[in-house]
């Protein structure tokens, strides 16, 4: 029930934005900024690019406020735009140009460590695991990667992922099964 209320609230906020209320756009931005940036970060594996693309997502939402119709869930729409931009960026071959070095993995790790100070060994082990996970996910075909990111990390359901990717639910399930199978094989040694 809470989830439904939140979805209705998103649509309501967007309708207010359409009516010219920019404060509601700020509320939407605060609610969805982190999931969109995180999804894009895992898709393109580049900190700066993920924020740039996320800005483009929200800019496009703002641009189309006048024609907004609550026909689909706001989150689905948002992830559809984000997926489209991420896949385009990957296909354009920008990945090679802006690919972060391994330092990013360590940098990312530093930001994520809990309050208690980890030992050097723990840090190194974490960095190695993180690198392997990133590489395994990076090796997945684009659509499989997008499906896994939305399913595992953003907790979207099959129908939302299907709408975001522009395919059927059964196609999404097939993408996910194949992707998880590949990941199980590649990351088996880490278990």
């Amino acid at each position, binding site marked *: 029930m809470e989830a439904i209320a939140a979805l209705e609230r998103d649509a309501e906020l967007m309708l207010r934005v359409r009516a010219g209320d920019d404060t509601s756009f*700020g509320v939407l*931005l605060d609610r969805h900024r982190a999931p969109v940036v995180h999804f894009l970060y895992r898709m393109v594996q580049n900190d700066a690019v993920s924020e740039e693309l996320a800005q483009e997502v929200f800019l496009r939402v703002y641009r189309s406020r006048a024609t907004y119709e609550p026909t689909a869930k706001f989150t689905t729409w948002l992830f*559809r*735009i984000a997926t489209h931009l991420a896949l385009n960026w990957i296909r354009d071959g920008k990945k090679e140009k802006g690919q972060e070095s391994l330092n990013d993995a360590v940098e990312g790790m530093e930001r994520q460590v809990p309050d208690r100070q980890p030992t050097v060994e723990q840090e190194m082990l974490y960095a190695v*695991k993180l690198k392997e*996970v990133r590489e395994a996910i990076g090796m997945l075909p684009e659509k499989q990667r997008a499906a896994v990111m939305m399913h595992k990390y953003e907790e979207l359901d099959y129908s939302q992922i299907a709408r975001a990717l522009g395919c059927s639910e059964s196609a999404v*399930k097939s993408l996910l099964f194949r992707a998880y199978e590949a*990941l199980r094989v590649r990351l088996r040694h880490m*278990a």
Partner: protein
Amino acid sequence: MDCLRNAKSGAETLLDYCSGALEPARVAELERHIKVCAECRSAVEAQRELWETLDHWKAPAVSADFNARLYARIARENEAPAWRRWVRRLTQPAAPYALWKPAAAALVCTVLAVGFLVEMPAERHAPHAPSASAQIETEQVDIEQVANALEELDLLTPPAPSKATTTSANPM
């Protein structure tokens, strides 16, 4: 409950169970089943381990100035001329694939149609060297015409008189 490997939706059940999306009644059913089925237990464990491994990857925090940068971009865009904003909306749609594909297809068709119409009169007025296939076709037509003409000539020409007729007709 059927084994996950045998059930039609076994893979889906496995995913839903590990992601916490499976209904409580089915969770209980599955958990009862994996207690007695080593194969399914192993499949569940493998997926659960993968799930935990993927949890290692935490995304970094969003920059503190994200909103400020976005609002600055919006402000810049609002200051841009109306035509530029309109072009941006057209070329960078919020709903991907919704409008631009048919629009692009229509544009390509229009360009092709215009190109075809422009090219056609030019061809009529400025004949150029015919291609090899056209030449062959022309030659085939010419041979046929010649053959037909010869046949017609044959028909028009009175048949050659027989020797007997010739003899009687020509007293010499």
